[in-house]
């Protein structure tokens, strides 16, 4: 890529990509692995079974705002 991206100036500092710590990589791996074990729909703890909003948009009625 460097052969295509050339500037007409020289930087005085060396820019380094921030290295990922081993702990970050492990966390990322675990998160990704876990996400493959989840269910097909979320569960939201301590919330109602059904939430119909504030009830001002006609949800579920014949005049419901179309999607």
């Amino acid at each position, binding site marked *: 890529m460097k052969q295509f991206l050339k500037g007409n100036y020289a930087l005085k500092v060396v820019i380094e990509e921030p290295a990922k710590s081993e702990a970050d990589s492990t966390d990322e791996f675990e998160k990704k692995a*876990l996400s493959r*074990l989840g269910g*097909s*729909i979320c*569960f*939201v703890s301590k*919330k109602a079974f059904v939430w*119909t909003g504030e009830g001002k948009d006609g949800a*579920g009625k014949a005049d419901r*705002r179309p999607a």
Partner: protein
Amino acid sequence: MELGKRIAAQLEGATFDRVAAAGLANAQANRARIGRSILELREAVGDGDAAVVVAAGPSLHRRRSLERLLASGFDGLVVAVDGALGACLRAGVIPQIVVSVDPHPGRIVRWFGDPTMTAAPTDDYFRRQEMDPVQATDEVTANRALVALVDRHGPRLRVAAATSASPTVVERCLGAGMALFWWNPMYDDYDKPESISRRLHRMNGLPCLNGGGNVGTAAWVITHALLGRRRVALLGMDFGYAPGTPYAKTQYYPELAEMLGDRVSEAFIHLTNPAHGEMWFTDPAYYWFREVFLAMTREAACETFNCTEGGVLFGPGIRSLPLEEFVADLRGVAKLSR
């Protein structure tokens, strides 16, 4: 704590990571097809006291639950998950409602029969799954038969369709003449101003349902919380695997094996169900579904009767009994109320 239970404890967040992006993309893709809200479903099916929710666990076949349901003369509401639709129709049980949730782009349409399938896919999901043994053998022939069966009964079926469902599933259901009633999965806390659930509701006006991790629990939620049924029986709601099932034949085995390597067997949790005395086993995902279901039961305004006769779902708030006894009790209640 056992390894399997430790993993299970992390699955609420992991499920969000697994399904939110795909579910929201599908909600967007389905927009033009969204018509009736699930709130209109109660009027469509009428009132009543009792219902049977049919999930797709292995007990459905081991206990011949559908044949027994038919023989019992049960005349209440039957709500089936998509994975149990084929088994229901083959047994002559026509559910009034089929529930579909999973956003997976290719697999779920198979539960409705995939008219475009010409060869067995490389994905071994259906050969490995325990939910519909018919689909696990000659996939092409089984699929063809299911396409014909669903096409025949489609116009009599109502689908409680989550906006997260794959557009392929939606197209298949509409093509078979089914009536769709839509709802949003609840993704997060709707009381928070930045909530995804709130944004989704604003976009399409549909109610959000707390799904409990899986389509079976979502079907139970729809049955009592939306359709107002007060006595809800469960069939095929195992949340586990029958004794003797090889670990490699379980739903999440490839993912668990990749994650845990040699320790994969430690992820499985064994439980003896006092209702039938058998020791079944479960994996972290199904164990999480079980724990969530038990927690939700405590809040539900219905009686839940587990007529599965298998699996690992037992605990406070759930009465286990044979299906015939549930139906006989209903008749007794009906006589008394006359």
